[in-house]
């Protein structure tokens, strides 16, 4: 049934799908390096036309987006550490079958997966705790992902019990077993889960939109949203304005600056993400 023709069209179709998936990214990259004239006349598709980096120069001189990028770096780095510090030890504890109350604690986590947190109750809680307009409002609502917790727990459960037994006989305490034995043997899962958290934090958007109003604290995503929505003449804060550059180019450059770090580490990210998803789906 599937002859040579069928096979060729399969390959062509998939290649086209792959190309169309990345085309919008290549297009925006080309626009960000093109001249205003070329952008307005709609000539830009895959390659920059009349190459120039004016848009980037202006964005960097303006500084707002860079400041927001710096915020995002802080949010991502500190947030990933916080998430991991809360998730990893808890997953380790829940993986211990001998623990008293294990079933109850597991149920507390599992049951919470059945319903989402309402925006308004969450907002009022944040207000009550006086955490609005701080990065805690970004980190705390998703401090521990139940899904990540269970993936990690089942990874710990899959580790050979004899290892720990022999360590116990050698006099190791729970703490030293965790730090000297379990953690070093869990690098693949630690890498995968940290990257799940890190990418989510880099892309953090709604929590910042809901809970942060101080524009100096905004992450790059919300800053970018504001730039994309703004009328043409107020895109930049400086007096030089956007008079001589087509704002489409400026917006494109802002988009590229926001997404560049993700694109740069993508091959690395992707490998660990896939591994993490597969680890998670084994036990479901």
């Amino acid at each position, binding site marked *: *049934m*599937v002859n040579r023709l069928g096979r060729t069209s*399969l*390959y062509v*179709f*998939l*290649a086209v799908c*792959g*190309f169309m998936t990345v085309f*919008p*990214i290549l*297009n*925006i990259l080309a626009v960000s390096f093109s001249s205003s004239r070329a*952008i*307005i006349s*709609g000539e830009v598709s895959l390659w920059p036309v009349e190459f120039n980096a004016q848009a980037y120069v202006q964005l960097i001189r303006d500084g707002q987006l860079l400041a927001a990028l710096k915020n995002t770096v802080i949010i991502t780095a500190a947030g990933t550490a916080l998430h991991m*510090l*809360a998730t990893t*030890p*808890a997953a380790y504890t829940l993986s211990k079958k*001998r623990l*008293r109350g294990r079933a109850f604690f597991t149920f*507390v986590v599992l049951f*919470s997966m*059945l*319903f*989402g*947190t*309402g*925006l*308004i*109750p*969450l907002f*009022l*809680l944040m207000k009550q705790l006086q955490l609005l307009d701080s990065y805690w409002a970004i980190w*705390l609502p998703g*401090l521990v992902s139940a899904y990540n*917790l269970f993936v990690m727990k089942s990874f710990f459960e899959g580790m050979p019990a004899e290892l720990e037994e022999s360590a*116990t006989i050698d*006099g190791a*305490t*729970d*703490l030293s077993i965790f730090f000297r034995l379990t953690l070093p043997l869990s690098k693949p899962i630690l890498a995968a889960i940290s990257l799940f958290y890190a990418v989510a934090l*880099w892309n953090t*958007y*709604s929590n910042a939109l*809901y809970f942060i109003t101080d524009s100096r604290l905004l992450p790059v*995503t919300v800053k970018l949203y504001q730039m994309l929505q703004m009328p043409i003449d107020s895109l930049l804060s400086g007096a030089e304005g956007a008079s001589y550059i*087509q704002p*489409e180019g400026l*917006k*494109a450059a*802002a*988009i590229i600056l*926001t*997404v560049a770090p993700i694109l740069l580490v993508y091959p690395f990210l*992707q490998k660990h993400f*896939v591994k993490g998803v*597969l680890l998670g789906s084994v036990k*479901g």
Partner: protein
Amino acid sequence: MSSMRGERMLGRAALPAASVPKTRRSRLRDVYRDRYLYVFLLPALAYFIVFKYVTLFGETIAFKNYRLLDGIWGSEWVGLKHFRTLFNSEDFWHVLGNTLLLNVYHLAFAFPAPIVLALLLNEVRAEWFKRAVQNLLYLPFFISWVVLGGMIVSLLSPSTGVVNALLGLFGVEPIYFMTSSVWWPVVFIVSTIWQSAGWGTIIYMAAMAAIDPGLYEAAKMDGAGRLRQVWHITLPGIRGTIAVLLVLQMGKMMDVGFEHVYNLQNAAVFSVSDVISTYVYRIGLQNAQYSLATAVGLFQGVIGLILVLIVNKTVKKLGEGGLW
């Protein structure tokens, strides 16, 4: 020190023996033995209690007249007043309709997309080609909706966008995709597929890899072509996975991702793009109608839960595993 250690080990070894009476003292000793483990659990447990269960209690303001001054406890009970207001408001039905409609489109077009892609990828024999295509297909999943939305708007712009430039070559007048209430839902669904169909193939491909290759051998012996093998072996092999993902998707029928809609939305297409999540944000956070917005959220959550339970039961009746 060494005697303490000995005791600890004894306690551990004695645990599985059912004959040992579980006195309060031995229970306390177990807890003391595992004290570090409980400390390990503490931050996560506190998080779940405060941010999942205390906020669940906060949902009660849907039945109260919430005022900041009175707090959640102190505000006066008003029963179903807010729900009555909602069910009598045109906006609410409108928003509910949009939410359901976009989700029906999702089920019809976006849900099958990764299945089709995975079936196609599964037929590729050249490993390098498969891997290259997968690398490209996964990419948008890692990018935030602000960025994806910005790219879409730029791509579809009637004046400078490449899509309209291309259509212009065939003599088509520029189409205002983002501001047309006919085109907007199409853009929304296509962008869903763009962002997540590639990533969604992973779980199906894993299910396909678990199918016994002997089945294909036997089918080949019987003279079955590739298409018949896909129909009789591959598809039945991933039926369970499809069923589970379908149950999960049904649970989201009342929910359209806020970040996705919000970043594609504009005033011109409000009539088709205003959904529950954007409505709650608007009336709740922007207009500070806390109780009313909570009622909307609660309604959404309860219907979503009921849907999951019903679909899970149905799927089980049809002989699939389901979620639990």
